[in-house]
């Protein structure tokens, strides 16, 4: 699930909120209320899943394996991701 050669690169993670719109990222950790965490995982947003932010408003619009999720900013704050787009730049 991790990007190739990710071991050689400095591990750079950030909250999902700060992830760039349009670029893919891998979920590293989920920290939020237990029932929300359960729900996120059931919706396909689990540790190791590929996600990408497709829009930012008062909520985040996130693509999770073809599904569009609207996530409150408070929730997106607790999701840590490793952006993949940054490796190239």
């Amino acid at each position, binding site marked *: 699930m991790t990007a190739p050669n990710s071991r050689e690169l400095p591990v750079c993670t950030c909250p999902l909120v700060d992830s760039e719109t349009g670029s893919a990222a891998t979920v590293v950790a989920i920290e*939020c*209320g*237990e*029932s*929300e*965490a*359960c*729900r*996120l*995982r*059931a*919706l*396909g947003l*689990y*540790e*190791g*899943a590929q996600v990408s932010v*497709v*829009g930012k*408003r*008062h*909520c985040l*619009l996130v693509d*999770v*394996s*073809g*599904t*569009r*999720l*609207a*996530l*409150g900013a*408070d*929730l997106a704050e607790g999701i840590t991701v490793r952006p993949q787009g940054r490796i190239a730049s």
Partner: protein
Amino acid sequence: MTATAGPERPTATEPLRVAIIGNPNTGKTTLFNALTGLRQRVGNFAGVTVERVEGAFRMPDGRRVAVLDLPGSYSLSAGSPDERIALEVLLDRDGQHWRPHVVLVVVDACHLERNLFLASQVCELGLPVVIALNQFDMAAEQGITIDVPELIHAIGVPVVPTVASRGEGIEPLKKALFTAAELPPPARRFTLPPEIEASLAPLVTHLERGGLARGPAEMEALRLLGVRRGEKHLAHIPDLARELDAARDAIRAVGHTPEREESEARYGWIGEVMQRTVRRRAAGTETTSDRVDAVVLHRLGGPLVFLAIMALVFQAVFSWAAPMQDAIEAVIHWLGALVAAPLPEGDLKSLVVDGVFAGVGSVLVFLPQIAILFAFIGVLEQSGYMARAAFLMDRVMRRVGLHGKSFIPMLSGYACAVPGIMATRTIDDQQERLATIMVVPLMSCSARLPVYTLLIATFVPALPLLPGLDLQGATMLAMYLLGTVAALAVAALFRKTLLRGPVRPMLLELPAYRWPSPQSLWVSVWQRCLLFLRRAGTVILALSIVLWALATYPKTAVDPSLPVEAQHEQQLAHSALGGFGHAIEPAVRPLGYDWKIGVSIVASFAAREVFVSTMGTIYGVGAEDDAALQDRLRRETRADGAPAYTPLVAVGLMVFYVFALMCMSTIAVTIREAGGGRLGWKWAGIQFAYMLALAYGAAWLTVTAGRALGFA
């Protein structure tokens, strides 16, 4: 308890019991409707407000099938009341002894990966499973090819491709249900890492000792790692919390994170299944849904589209229903006259015309609004727009402690609180839902309109204020605004007191847009109407007859030389209702009302618009003649010669009607929707009491402040 035994087989006399489960937005309900048609019964799961819909169908050879539509669930992790219910039913722990013979998992072919998470959990419960691979056509359109035989092989259960909205695949699916009932139940298809397996073993054994079969015990052990609450269906197992903590510690000791284990294991297996069975055309292209969302969720365009759609819904419920309502009233009136014609003048005739037929009319007259509103809600939900509306409104509603989904019920309240309260069923969180029910009747409904119209036309002069707006229009607008602002404020108050609780963070799936299925729409509208007639309708009819009796008895000798209307007035004044009006006169006097208004207010408990007809009766001018009633009200004087009604009293009265819950239909619906039984009565009581207190207080404040400012 049968939970330890293997799967049950239906006996020769009982129907095959099938439970349908699936993620929201998979077309689960459409499939359920396609299977059962109109043969459905709607109730509630015991003790909760989660809706329980059971249907039935018959095979061509006469075998019967009972189908239970479980609430939409993303997993069996019991994060919401809906998911908890689903799990309890599947484990036969919901206390209704409806243990399914077969579980039908509805899976969205377009989002197979996520949907298989729930399916893989269900497959471990020791029950035969059939998977309906629904929206198979849409998957093909999106360039997704699924190798069905390979999928059957990978999961180990029958898989039937379906397109529920067009009825495709329904017959093979029905046959598969019977075939599956004869097959051995599926089991877990993946293995956990050995160190996890070992860490969980004591917990699994403990659950088995608690009465669970091997499969469900393993499923529960893995699931419980991510859950921390005590759960009702496992409450009978002693020391479960201790065993669970031990298992978590053991997992941490080998360097893993307990909460992640289930999703990692299941999605790991699902990933392999996907590789073997699914081919995808080059991804990354923009879908039609994305293009629609670019407009519908646009910063400026989004709210505009939303407003346009809401205006259409409001207009439809408000005005399209009117001709149908008039027609229903006319037919009822005509039927009443027809039935009453051969009866002699007297109480029996009065009971038939003014009690029974008027009561039936006051029930049926709501049907057009309910049908129209629910047709719209159905279209908005099935098309996928409802999730977008909730997304857009979430920001505003969150400020008063409600969810975006509370908006539609509140808007519907402008037309009528009855369908509005029924529409709160789309709200997941119980506290948020109750808070919404509590405030929906504060939105000025169409039944208040006749009251506002009469009083404004009589007492408020048409002074021009702005181009296109005079004082009369402004007064009307003020009444609507007053109710709306109060509704938001009271909702916030409820969420900080009786219905306290965090607003659940925004977490919403925005499903792909699709065309609604007409058959499914028709079934859901029909179901809502039936539900209203059966539950609320009976209460309304009974109360109408009670109110008729109160207005008719005790009889008094009327002066036959007087005109008919005056006879009515005399009779009403001496009836139990009239007595009540006199009795509450001291209470309403501070608001500037006399006993006649008191009677009208009490009588309008049947429905607010009755206020106008009762005033007509009391003043002996009849309800049909608005101009005569207005004239009469302006001329009415008190004993001391001062005018009985001043513009100030009229405004106070309108303010009273903005807030007061003068509507027994609303009360009946609140009782039912707040959970029925004692719970329902409790919330209906709270609702009635707070609204009456608010109405009285606000009317008193209006009159007192008005007088202090020098208005008459």
